[in-house]
């Protein structure tokens, strides 16, 4: 079974995604990094579903994909909004409020 390899892949993707979220200043890149994490989750789910032989994982993965799409939609809309108001999507400039 390739389950372990899939899980490793999932873990690696997860780490890459986390790194992206933490390190990237560009909002869109951060969004994409989050997508990476979600995909790592999907891989995990599918791998486990294969190993366990149940359909739940697949179902879950489908939900995740759907919700992720919605999320990205909202996310991009927001980034657009910010861009319209600030002409920039650099996240570290978004620090009006702090402390």
């Amino acid at each position, binding site marked *: 079974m390739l389950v372990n390899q899939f899980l490793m892949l999932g873990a690696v993707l997860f780490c890459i995604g986390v790194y992206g979220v933490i390190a990237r200043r560009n909002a869109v890149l951060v969004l994409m990094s989050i997508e990476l994490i979600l995909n790592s989750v999907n891989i995990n789910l599918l791998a486990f*579903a294969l190993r366990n032989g149940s359909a739940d994982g697949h179902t879950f993965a489908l939900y995740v994909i759907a*919700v992720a799409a919605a999320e990205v939609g909202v996310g991009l809309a927001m980034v657009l909004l910010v861009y319209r108001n600030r002409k920039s999507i650099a996240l570290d400039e978004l620090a009006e409020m702090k402390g």
Partner: protein
Amino acid sequence: MLSSLLSVVAASDWVSPTIDYHALAPEIVLAAGIVIVLLVDLFTSETNKWLVAPLASFSLLGAFIPVVTIALSDNTMRELFDGRYVVDEFSLVIKGLFILAGYVVVLISTDYLREGDYYQGEYWFLVLTSILGMVMMASSRDLVSIFVALEFLSIPAYMLAAWRKRDLKSNEAGVKYYLLGVFASAIMLYGMSLLYGIANSTLLTDIGETLSSEMTSIRALAILFVIIGFAFKVSAVPFHTWAPDTYEGAPTPVTAFLSVASKAAGFVALVTVIYVAFPYASDVWQPVIWILSVLTMTVGNVLALRQTNFVRMLAYSSISQGGFILMPLAVAGEGTTGQSALRAVVVYLMLYAATNLGVFAIVIAVARKTRSGAIASYGGLFSYAPGLAALMTIFMASLAGIPPLGGWFGKFAAFQAVLSAETNWGYAIAVIGAVNSVVAFGYYGNVLREIWMRPVPDGDTAPVVIQPAIAVALGITGVATLVLGTLPGIVSHFGDLASLSSAFSG
């Protein structure tokens, strides 16, 4: 491989599940309300947009009716979809809480929106959607449905936070909330995927049974990641960072909604997961929640002390209150403590909702006059708006936990639960909590000091006009705070939820 999978699916004959429509009635009413609101908003002219707000409130009140009828029916334990969606006492109480809290949010939003000329129809749609997500959350007993419910309530909330499109702060609030929220839910999802792998099921009860055996590092990791997802939602330190910025930037009614309903939803999910999925893994989550709780109440408190913006202060206060709500969960796994811990959480949530919504109602009413969010702008409120000042006093005292105002009983129940464990960890967190409850008065008292003892900052002592909707909201929350404080017996049995905590009683 795929074939084997398909054979598994094919092996069991597809049986259309019997659906208990009575049990789903609140959700159905809400969904219908959402659609109607959207449609009415689409097809009415600008001048008739005011119709939408009453519609939204009616749909909420309409959704409340079935909650009551189910509660009054003989069967208050209804399992749907193989136990993935459960309507029991716990969920009913919580649903009632969400719906009523939503109703109050609608009340305090109405005039705010009309005067701000914000996109009314969509607002109501999003609020109702989010509430629907919360209502679903209360019944979800499956990883998938929990996840869906969570996103259902979160995504509209992200948009609501950024509602004032031209306002940079609102944008910032939305973006921060969104990015961190999605990040946290991604981490949680990762944990869920691991859980699924371990238990080979997304059903919480199955997971619970699987986790009763020996703990491994991967299991612990899964549990931790899931908890973190909800800890973000309840803005527990150190996953709280979004809260102050979002609360400050978001429109005030939205902040009220986030700090009460959204937070409550997070706790509901956390409680569900802990009680149903992890009852036998208390070795893992108890210390985690203990630390979260201590950090949350302490950091929230000390940071709140330094705030000058009222809403931001409320954000930290809300973080700190979250710490108190977490407190009983930190020992929920000990013996029979689970039941009293659950009761404490539920009761605390109710009292906190009533009080905090009241505070926001006043904030909206006062900000309408002063056009400022600074705590100092409340100076001398007592001299020109004694009624509001008195109510604010009641709410602040309730948040500070001073009898006989609502909040005290929440704290009391929390302490009671913690101490009933009779463990050293329990005593320790109780003492820390006690000290924190004193520190908290530092900032609540500061507000009272402004209101009662300071001069009016700009000398403008024109009375504050209170719109009817706000007045109703204030009435509901004020009476609730007072009555629940003096006669806590009324709510306390709502927390007596045997079904959910059954895992602990045996």
